[in-house]
């Protein structure tokens, strides 16, 4: 079953992916949550997103060795890799939790990255059966 309008929550590092302070971004991507560093994203934040109805979660962080806080992106990557194992044990496709670690200080690539992830979520279908 395809999912035409997947709910994607995106955590985006302000240093790596821009501050998202233009109205375009704010209006276009309501589910983008800017954070000071991807390292501040706790595993409970990601699980809360799924709990509250997300079909997928995307984490945007700085490129390797380029974290403004030195190793924040590394810590989050390890959390994500662990959470993917847990999601798999729950019977959920681990690809519902994605990360892209890259440098895009003006955030221009965000729409394309979100679109690509949403496309993958569409193919996976809804996380929960329609009630």
């Amino acid at each position, binding site marked *: 079953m395809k999912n035409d309008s997947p709910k994607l929550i995106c955590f985006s590092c302000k240093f790596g992916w821009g501050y998202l302070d233009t109205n375009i971004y704010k209006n276009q991507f309501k589910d983008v949550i800017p954070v000071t560093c991807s390292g501040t994203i706790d*595993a409970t934040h990601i699980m809360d997103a799924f709990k509250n109805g997300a079909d997928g979660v995307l984490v945007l962080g700085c490129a390797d060795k380029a974290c403004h806080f030195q190793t924040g992106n590394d810590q989050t*990557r390890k959390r994500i890799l662990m959470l993917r194992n847990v999601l798999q*044990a729950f019977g959920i*496709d681990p690809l519902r939790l994605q990360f892209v670690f890259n440098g895009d200080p003006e955030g221009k690539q965000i729409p394309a990255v979100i679109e690509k992830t949403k496309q993958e979520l569409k193919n996976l279908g809804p*996380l929960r059966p329609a009630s």
Partner: protein
Amino acid sequence: MAEKPKVAIYWLTACGGCDEAIVDLNEAILTVADAVDIVLWPVAMDFKYASIRKMKKGDIALTILHGAVRNSEQEEMAKLLREKSQLVLAFGACACFGGTPGLANFRSKEDIFNWVYQDAPTVVNPKRHRPQPEVSMNGDKLTLPEFFERVHPLNHVIDIDYYLPGCPPPPQLIANAVFAVLEGKLPPRGATLAPAKPLCDACPRNASKPEKIEIKEFKRIHQVEAKEDLCFLAQGVICLGPATRSGCGETCIRTNVPCRGCFGPVEGVDDVGAKFISALAPLIDSENEEEAKKIIDGIADLAGYCYRFSLPSVTWIPHCKEK
């Protein structure tokens, strides 16, 4: 002489270890038995459910309920005892968070029935019978409790006044809880009758924790000769101390076994597994994705470790079987 307060002790999906823990109060139980009138305790004495049903609302001063809720009979008893009781204490990990029976929530009801009544190698069931909640036979209606889709902690089914976690709760905390009720010295409703801080704070090995823990490979406790005076995580052995509430008396740690998390999350945390992952991930000594993945994949059953006692408190698992 004034009537003694009535106390009920009842089990749901439970192993009996919590009853054993109450008996382990030793001589203190004589003081309790003198002070209260036990009106229900199936594991120790003979009482009838009908006599509970005849009671008025609030007749029972305290019900100590242990075990999770998996079927409709347990739900009915939990609701009955809630109705008749002034206070309900969720007693033990199963009642508080679902406990080890809650690990069944990794599977759907259908998966469980398929295995138990069909696919297990010792099962012979050519007609593919499954237990039914209701069957008519020779004009008589036979009933069985309904097996629910999931295991539930008690607070999904009834209102809980106090929580006392543990597998089982230690005698000292049980005694504190019972005497607090008898003496009317209780904290605000909804409180957990155990310290709020994580186990690491009380751990006798806390001082041995190195400045920085760097794990290159996770080991299971049976694969190493664990040192008795060194933090388990510093030895690469998974210990849930950083995310687990203290108050257990550190019994496991003192017998050279790492914490498995039976006291549940610390104050203010719902998802103990996710919180533990947040604590554990930075200890992995790798900044390389491939290597980190290899180290993490080396953990046998990470989800089982994280949610050993608390899986039913994760309510959103959709059982969609994508992978």
